[in-house]
């Protein structure tokens, strides 16, 4: 059995809130593809982008607790996180616990006081939803299971910051053919192309949306997002495919803000890559939460005859 067939699932806080549609569509796609998810019991926040600024070791502990539960209470070998923030923080904790004695000591001390097993580096593999589908199913099998096609849909694939940076926490990337690239990521491109989408040549795949300061420095975020939206449109995209709830809501929020505050209107719609895959797999748009998106993806899918 493929080791990604049955994985521990760490949705994270955003997927219980603004990223609800990403949660729903990830589960729906897993179901359609026969991939099993088992949610980590009593999980906590990974620390997102904020906690490390108060103290980095607190973030390391928070992420390690989630991994400790997956290993010691679920006997899991693999944990999948669809959110770039969660995925990044678990990877960062894994790296620090493998390489830094101070991190090991702090995490051990807090874990003991909190009354649970300490997570040890090397006992769990953290993957992203993209790895899960790309390596758990692959393009060939995905094609075989399609019930429709995204034919004619022009897509810009947007990966954001935390899926590839900093590269030292992703030792499995940049390993040549078959592995993900940190400078030119392509897993999402590959999957959506297999589902029939026409990927446009998009230069800002790993540009920053200003997500960390989306509310505390809104003007900067709006400029950064507007740049991404306009570049996608200039490349001919109708849709920006996303794989992170913070990027996704950042793009949607600042698209509205750019329109209201700067008077710069853009038409490109944001859809989670799992929503797009779900459509191609014949799952109804409502089940994929397309109606929850702020930018009206449903209207576009109808226009294209996909919904």
């Amino acid at each position: 059995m493929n080791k990604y067939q049955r994985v521990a699932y760490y949705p994270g806080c955003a997927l219980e809130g603004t990223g609800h549609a990403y949660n729903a569509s990830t589960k729906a796609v897993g179901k359609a593809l026969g991939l099993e998810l088992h949610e980590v019991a009593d999980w906590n926040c990974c620390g997102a982008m904020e906690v490390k600024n108060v103290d980095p070791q607190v973030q390391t502990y928070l992420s390690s607790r989630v991994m400790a539960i997956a290993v010691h209470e679920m006997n899991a070998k693999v944990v999948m996180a669809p959110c770039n923030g969660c995925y990044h923080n678990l990877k960062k904790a894994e790296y620090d616990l493998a390489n830094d004695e101070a991190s090991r000591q702090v995490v051990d001390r807090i874990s003991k006081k909190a009354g649970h097993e300490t997570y040890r580096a090397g006992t769990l593999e953290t993957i992203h939803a993209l790895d899960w589908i790309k390596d758990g199913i692959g393009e060939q099998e995905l094609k075989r299971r399609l019930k429709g096609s995204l034919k004619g849909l022009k897509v810009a694939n947007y990966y954001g910051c935390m899926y590839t940076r900093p590269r030292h926490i992703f030792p499995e990337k940049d390993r040549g053919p078959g592995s993900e690239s940190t400078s030119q990521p392509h897993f999402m491109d590959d999957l959506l192309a297999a589902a029939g989408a026409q990927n446009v040549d998009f230069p800002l795949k790993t540009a920053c949306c200003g997500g960390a300061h989306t509310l505390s420095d809104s003007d900067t975020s709006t400029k950064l997002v507007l740049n991404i939206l306009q570049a996608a449109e200039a490349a001919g995209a109708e849709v920006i495919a996303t794989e992170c709830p913070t990027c996704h809501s950042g793009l949607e929020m600042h698209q509205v803000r750019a329109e209201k505050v700067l008077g710069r209107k853009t038409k490109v719609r944001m859809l989670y890559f799992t929503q797009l895959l779900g459509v191609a797999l014949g799952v109804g748009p409502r089940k994929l939460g397309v109606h929850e998106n702020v930018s009206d993806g449903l209207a576009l899918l109808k226009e294209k005859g996909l919904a």
Partner: protein
Amino acid sequence: MAIHEKSLIRPEDLKVQDKVVLDGVDVSGHWSTFIQSRVVTDYNEALEEEISALPGGEHIHRCWQCGSCTNSCTVNAVNPDFNPRFWIYLVRMGMESELLRDKDIIWQCVSCNKCTYACPRDVMPEGVMKATAHWLELKGHVPKSKSTQFDEEFTAQVVATGKIEEGRIIRNFFARTGQPLLQDWLLEMAKRVVRRLPFKQGLAMGWAALFRPRTRKWAKASAALGEYIHEQEARNRKALNLE
């Protein structure tokens, strides 16, 4: 522009002569921009050590000033005055008064980690930016930035309940920073969200706002984290010789 990083030279340090002829050659215009010489005496020799003592600043000593951080910087592309390479230089030289001229923008680092990706010396410039921003706040040179207030609100909720509820974070953050919740663009966004949202889901969101999501069996972790954060705060203040 002849001098690439012109924004580094303050206007008052530039000496422009409209008409200069040397040995019969007219060198006015572009080439007649001279930098006023000056003497710096107020070094803070402890500056690098202090920044190094704060989380994120540990590797600042590795920097050899190649400028890859500034070249790759997301915020630098929006504001050329945002210059990590230059600030690392100032910190290492102890030029505190120069650094303080940029005190109001250093917090704007968006943590995209492009600098950390590009850095050939593993300085981890993103961490150095955070350490420098914290140093400015701890030393009282600047009030807590909106970003810091957001981080503190967020962390307090995680420590208390194990999870966050986005609506509560936003409400508390806006209240704390004195911003109105009823902003044009926020209302417009809310309108667009509600338009297509089924009633049941709206109800679920209201439920989450009233009854905060919590991690079960969190009390001991919460206490241990609170204690640790308190310890670290004391440690950081001590490293900067603060009361």
